[in-house]
């Protein structure tokens, strides 16, 4: 089974209604634990990892865009996956929150996990990624280290360093 080894963050707003940040993580953790015996992580530790310690008691729908993204990532991490898929983690997030997310993503990457993320921002790809692939209509047009890909992309786009 692959599912225990991967974590997926589909969209920031995909939470159970009327649960607080801490309860969201506990719910996901216990739902995972029921079937796979994954040791339920301490919800507060998880919140600390994504920098939401102060928002533990806040309902998910009241979190700001960036906070919701971080909670969403935390929910994807509850079962300690090796591979993490993130769908536009920095979409619809203000610049400061975006920087915080970058730090978080680097931490996750440094903890030995592989992170696959999609983004519209070339600077983000360049700053965060070891490998970049440009996709159009489901086909990979270019793939490789960020410098090579962004330099030679067909649009001629050259981002300024992040």
């Amino acid at each position, binding site marked *: 089974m692959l599912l*225990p080894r991967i974590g997926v963050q589909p969209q920031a707003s995909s939470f159970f209604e009327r649960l607080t940040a801490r309860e969201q993580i506990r719910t996901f953790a216990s*739902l995972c634990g*029921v079937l796979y015996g994954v040791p339920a992580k301490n919800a507060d530790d998880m919140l600390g990892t994504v920098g939401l310690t102060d928002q533990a008691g806040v309902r998910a729908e009241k979190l700001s865009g960036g906070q919701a993204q971080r909670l969403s990532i935390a929910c994807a991490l509850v079962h300690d996956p090796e591979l993490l898929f993130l769908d536009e983690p920095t979409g619809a997030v203000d610049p400061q929150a975006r920087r915080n997310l970058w730090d978080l993503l680097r931490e996750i990457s440094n903890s030995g996990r592989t992170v696959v993320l999609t983004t519209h921002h070339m600077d983000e790809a360049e700053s965060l990624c070891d490998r970049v692939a440009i996709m159009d209509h489901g086909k990979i047009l270019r793939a490789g280290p960020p410098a090579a890909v962004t330099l030679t992309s067909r649009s001629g786009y050259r981002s300024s360093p992040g």
Partner: protein
Amino acid sequence: MLFLVFFGSIYKNSSASKISPVEVGQVQLLSQARRAGPPLAKVLAVSHARSVAAALDAVRKGNSDAAVLQRGAHVIVRYSIADQTKAGPVNSVLASVAQAANQAASGQPPRFTLSASQVEDKSLKPIQYFTPGLLGWALASGATFGAAITLVSWRQNKLLRRLRLAPIGTGSIVAARIGIALAIGLIQLAVFLAIARLPYFGLQLTAAWWMTIPLVVCGILAFMSIGLLVGAIAKTQQAATAIANLIILPMAFLGGAFLPQDFAPDWVRQASYVMPLRYQVTGMQDVMARGEGPAAALPAIGILPGFTLVVGVVAVRTFRWDDI
């Protein structure tokens, strides 16, 4: 719940229906009947009017059920057919008053006596009938709407997709939802019974009432399967609400939750055999109010899971994780 309190208060005294004729001058018959005591004296609430015109006016306005006046040995009764449910009893009660007087005048003891009583316990009040009906309806709509709307909203906010991609078994999600629905349903049952058993409403539970618990469980599963099917078909929450209403409301009216089946035309009774609510409500009425044994609930306990299985399979077939 509101309906229970509402109907319970309205129909509280419906068994005591009195006839209130208005008497013009002195009517010997009526005073005799009052002196004779029950049962006739019990249903008569006689008032007086000075003139015939005033009495007729009171009847026309509906303040009195009939005007009674006496001309010698001839007693005249004028009634209104505006209130047809009263017109019948008025005529028959006053006729029996006259007959009783004739019989007394003959000086002979009555040759035949008639004693009529209802087959149910004397304490059988309307609350006995509509507590199971309203409870069945409340459980049905709770389970159906809960399942349908949760499914649609989870699909809409992509929570379903997230659950699918997390290492979470579909079984544990479904089991969790069913567990919650059953817990809520049993609490509903407890609160309903507690309120209906207040002295004010006066529900009397009969011996096998505990069979309502398995009935409630079977009913909730059946209605959850309907809800899942609705949630699988509907794309938006509004659509889910509309479809669930279309299913539940006709079922509540035709399946005997609001209106007793005895008054329903034949085709309604035929149609009710495909409605799960019918089995649940009649099962609950049998064991809660009619005093039948635990076995009376067994047909429903057999049919409802079958229904659940069929609808559940269709729901699983139409189920979608995503809107696309």
